[in-house]
């Protein structure tokens, strides 16, 4: 299956969802997304970082430096309370949107 381009704005929601499971560093998030989508999502590896920085500026996630598996400090991101609320809201919005679109596509 050819890789599908990600809709703008949904990357944030996906990252939030991944982080809801637990804290993770940048490339971990990319790995997880790849895993979950069975590698069908076309995602530039570095493009997750602007999104992370943006969400950190908005206060949905927070970052801390902690020792990683190879004993070096890596930057771990985790969800904040506001982030959790944002995730819920975006999830709702997405569900509604996809329902409407599916309906239209079927009915038309």
């Amino acid at each position, binding site marked *: 299956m050819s890789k599908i381009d990600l809709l703008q704005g949904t990357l944030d929601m996906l990252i939030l969802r991944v982080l809801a499971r637990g804290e993770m*560093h*940048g*490339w971990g998030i990319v790995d997880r997304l790849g895993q979950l989508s069975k590698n069908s999502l076309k995602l*530039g*590896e*570095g*493009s997750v*970082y*602007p999104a992370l*920085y*943006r969400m950190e*500026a908005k*206060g949905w996630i927070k970052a801390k*430096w902690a020792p990683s598996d190879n004993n*070096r400090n*890596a*930057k771990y991101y985790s969800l*904040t*309370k*506001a982030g959790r609320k944002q995730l819920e809201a975006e999830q709702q919005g997405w569900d509604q949107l996809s329902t409407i679109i599916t309906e239209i596509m079927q009915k038309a």
Partner: protein
Amino acid sequence: MGSLRQLCSRLAGLFRRRDLEAEMAEEMRQHLEHRTQEKIADGLSHDEARYAAQREFGGVAQMQEQCRDEHRFAWLEQFLQDCSYARRMYVRSPGFTGVILLSLALGIGANAAIFSLCDTVLWKMLPVAQPEQLVFLARYSTKEAPSWRKFCEISYPLLEALERRSPLLAGATTFKVGQMTVGTGGEAESVRSLAVAEDFYSILGVGTSAGRTIQPGDLRSGALAVLSHGYWQRQFAGRPVVGSSIILNGRPHTIIGVAARDFFGLNPGESFDVSVLLPEADLRLDLSPTDPKAGSLFLVVARLKPGVARSEAATALTSLLRQLHREENLSSLTPEAIAQQRIEVQAASGGLSTLRAKYSQPLLALMALVGLVLMITCANVANLLLARATARSREMAIRASLGAGRARLIRQLVTESLGLALVGGLLSILVAQWSIDVLVRLASSGDAPIGLHVTLDQRALLFTLVVSVGTGLLFGLAPALSGGGAGGTAIYGQTNRAASTLPWFSRCLVVGQMALSLVLLFAAGLFVRSLQNLTQLDSGIRRDNVLLVAVDPQRAGMSGPVVADFYQELLTRIATMPGVVAATFERNIPLGGASTRRPLAPAGYLPPGGEAAIATATEEVGPRYFETMGMRIVAGRDFGARDDRNGPKVVVINEAAARDFFPGQNPLGRRIGQSSNRAELEIVGIAQDARHDNLRAPAQPMAYLPALQDARIRDTNIVVRTAGDPLALAPQVRQVIRDTNSRVPIMGVTTLTETAARALVQERLTASLAGVFGGLAIVLAGVGLGGVLLFTVTRRTREIGLRMALGATRGSVVSMIMRESLHLVGIGLLVGVPCAIALGHGAEKLLFGLTPADPITLGLAVILLVSVALLAAFWPARRAAKVDPMVALRTE
């Protein structure tokens, strides 16, 4: 709480920029490292793994850039960056920055100062409660238009009747300005007094700084005084004075309070010192409203009820006046005359202002001039910024190609221009404050300190600031607005070639500056020469070396013949003093601002206005008057000692009066007098015409009366013509006066030259200010021209190098620059000369002895302008001449 912490951490992030950068780099490096390891584990070589990882990641630098932009305070960081860049750029070109700052500071500052001055003198409202409700009332008895007269023709009983019976008035009161003596004896000091009715302060609604003001009911409280704030500070240094005593006109008064700080009376620009009650006897409360014996008050101030229009009040009061006459007419007016009487109601919100009348024309003229200076300033700033903009078009193009969006470029340019404009604005506040001090000092030179309290007007400053900031923004933004971003080429052409000549509107600005400077120089020349003409005018009176000492024996309780004897004895003593050429006395000094008129005329004389229009200017003088004044006696004789109360009543008239009263005949021996007795005074002399009251108008008919023959002889000015410096003799003259009678107060000592100078203070102010602005304009314009020429030379360095390499001499290069300068000036003159002449016509009333298009002044202005232009071209021309062809051809 969490968001606050987040905010703090983000702000902290501003200062930890370097750490954050390092962190971000580390993070991405780790990501790449991890991926590289994975790929190596998959079997690729080290390098291949690395390239693959990088490819998958995307551009690291771009990602970092994007991350940086996500930073919340990115705009603040960029702003600080722009500020720092702007500062470095401006510091590196001090000439450019200095000229712009100077132009802004001077242009804005001067405008704000003049506007504040105009506001205080011309437009400001009185510092009382609801000034817009205040009006002046005056009674007129003919159909003629209201004009300024000494009295309002309303008596106090009439005022009371109008106030009581008119439903439209919330109150009416009166006051009188004058002089009083503070202290006793020869050391008495003269102060300005404000004598008021009981309800004056309460009707006006004046506040206090200490104690209380005069209130209704105070007529019974004895002698009270209220001080003005300024006088309180000057005389008593703000010490508590309420309750203490002060001797005014020989009587002790109790000080009951000090008026509010900004209350100066009803005369803007001239503050009172002490305020007392109008004596009850003056009010004549016993008489009825229509009785003419009640006299006339100086001025009536009334407060209209809210919502009442002035015209409405005028009509109502007029009919009320006629009603009063119908009820009880004690005047000698016929019913027809009564029907022609009316009450005029004039706005008093700005107060009564002799200063306003004196200065309103020149001040408005100055506002126009200073507006022109502002335009020159803006043109200068605009030109310099434009020149800078063309030089930076390349820089802008590079920035755009590196990824700066249009918005980012505009933000940078705005920051730079705003910064410059704001610094200029701050400087202009200093300039404005200093200018106001200088202006007030200029205006009050010669006079006693005017109570002129000019504060820097916020609106003026704001307006001029907005104008300059606007100019700065507009022309600072030019390169970005013209499409410097997104790959477009700036309007000023590409880097090398097209920008070698100035864009057309830059030249227009320089031409405009030249024209405006010419106009200002011409105006300055006109005013200065008018002033010169006035000061050098032969007024008929020899002004040099004349001492004037004002005395008032009435304040010492003397009257009638005692005063006459006092004056005679005084003159005898003074005339024998060493250093004295001649001595006399005169009631109203020349150009002193005061004048008297009497209905003197020969029998049968009927001027066009009818008998009621006879009003001859008169002067009450002492013996040897004409000799002391240096005036020629054309026929007959001067006054002598025998012209006293025992001798036959005589008069001397001037040539103008002789022409008027007795055209073509010999006036000597003929008689003139008031309507009761037209044969009262015998004409014994004809004096040469002299401009006694007004330097600008030709001499009016005058009659000189010997004061010693007047039974009601009053205060006067002793006139002493000295051989040397008159003020050097002043202490001795004072001593002689004290020796003759120690109780007579000396009201003031001055000289005739000083009085003349004071009379010309308006012209001097105008001339000095016009001169200052003219000078300012030419300096600014010269600098503007120089800057623009310098820019041209720099841009055309290559071309000049080429010319020189092809054989042009340095001289021809210099003349090329000079020609360009003259070219611009020439067009400026073409535009400027008609404008200057138009201005001359506009200011015609202010000129003296000059035609509005005076060719000498115009010629001088043109020559000055051309010289300055050549001077301004000197530095750029030298730069051009120093161009080394080899270096020039190699550089851009």
